């Protein structure tokens, strides 16, 4: 199996978006009420096994009030046929590399790092992910791990007062 990773972030590529929507529908994974059109604009990296879509990462930029900065929250979906192939680990590595370079090139978006909420209990044995670089920074009310990895280039603003523009953390589900 030769898996290739394709960057889809902000590409608005109709072919890639159609592949993603087909996989979501096939796996019935879109929550009720969620807009497919909105969600498909968050796709980041796609993992293909030849022409077959095997995995998707998507990103949603949200504030983490605890850190007083915006982070790109990553979600992954792996086709069941590929869950034993370590695609998830490689996918998050590629996703981090891509979004870190994007954030560096787009300082106006002020994306400080990559973050995730680990909803699967077997995830997060190590406090810092080897591939993602995301460290454990706390827990949700549901006792899920919240992870964040600062981008190397990101400079913390000297303003030490809490910013008022950050709403309460709206964790990606």
């Amino acid at each position, binding site marked *: 199996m030769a898996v290739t990773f394709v960057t889809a972030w902000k590409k608005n590529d109709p072919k890639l978006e159609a592949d993603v929507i087909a996989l979501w529908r096939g796996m019935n994974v879109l929550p009720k009420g969620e807009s497919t059109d909105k969600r498909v604009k968050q796709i980041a990296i796609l993992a293909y096994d030849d022409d077959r879509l095997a995995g998707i990462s998507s990103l949603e930029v949200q504030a983490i009030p*605890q*850190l*007083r*900065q915006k982070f790109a929250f990553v979600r992954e979906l792996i086709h069941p046929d590929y869950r034993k192939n370590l695609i998830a680990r490689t996918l998050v590595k590629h996703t981090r590399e891509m979004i870190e370079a994007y954030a560096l090139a787009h300082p106006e978006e002020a994306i*400080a*790092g990559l973050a995730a909420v680990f909803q699967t*209990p077997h995830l*997060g*044995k*190590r*406090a*810092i992910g080897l591939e993602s670089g995301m*460290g*454990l*920074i*706390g*827990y949700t009310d549901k*006792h*899920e*791990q919240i992870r*964040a*990895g*600062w*981008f*190397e280039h*990101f*400079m*913390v603003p*000297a303003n*030490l*007062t*809490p910013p008022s523009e950050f709403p309460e953390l709206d964790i990606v589900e």
Partner: protein
Amino acid sequence: MTTTYIDAWRKSDPKLEAAATAFWTELNLLPEGATAAERLKELAVLAYDGATLIGVSTLKINFFDQLRQKFAFAREAIRPEYRLQSVGRDLMLATREVIEPYALAHPEEEIAGIGAIYQAPGIGKRGIGRKTRLALIGYTAKNEQVRIGWFSHFIVPPNLTPPKPRTGGGAE
């Protein structure tokens, strides 16, 4: 300047303890109500420029509620004329290099990492320190940065329920 770092952690070395006590006393660094004897139990690393003691770090192991683990919280005192020379950063790095192998060798103490409260406004410019690898994970009520460096060997227990409340918890 060539700085030498001496590991004093849990050594109870009278010579190192006397040097640290003299340093704290000379610079009037012990807060009111704190005694050198108490602080000496936390003595971690001494930094020397030649024969001059230029910095001292201590470690206090506290349960950190936010992360549900125990961390070794570091404090540093640097001789004033050596500040702004990266001595603090290098002393933090040396302190980490002392406590991380100690934690690995003493799993019964369950020390998950090193922590610090950055009280000086000029430090903590990057989200994660390039040398120390201490990451910003929050702020105190006084808007000071709370930094954590997880030890690479530490495995997070699978228990997802919150720990029982303990007294004296927290980063401060």
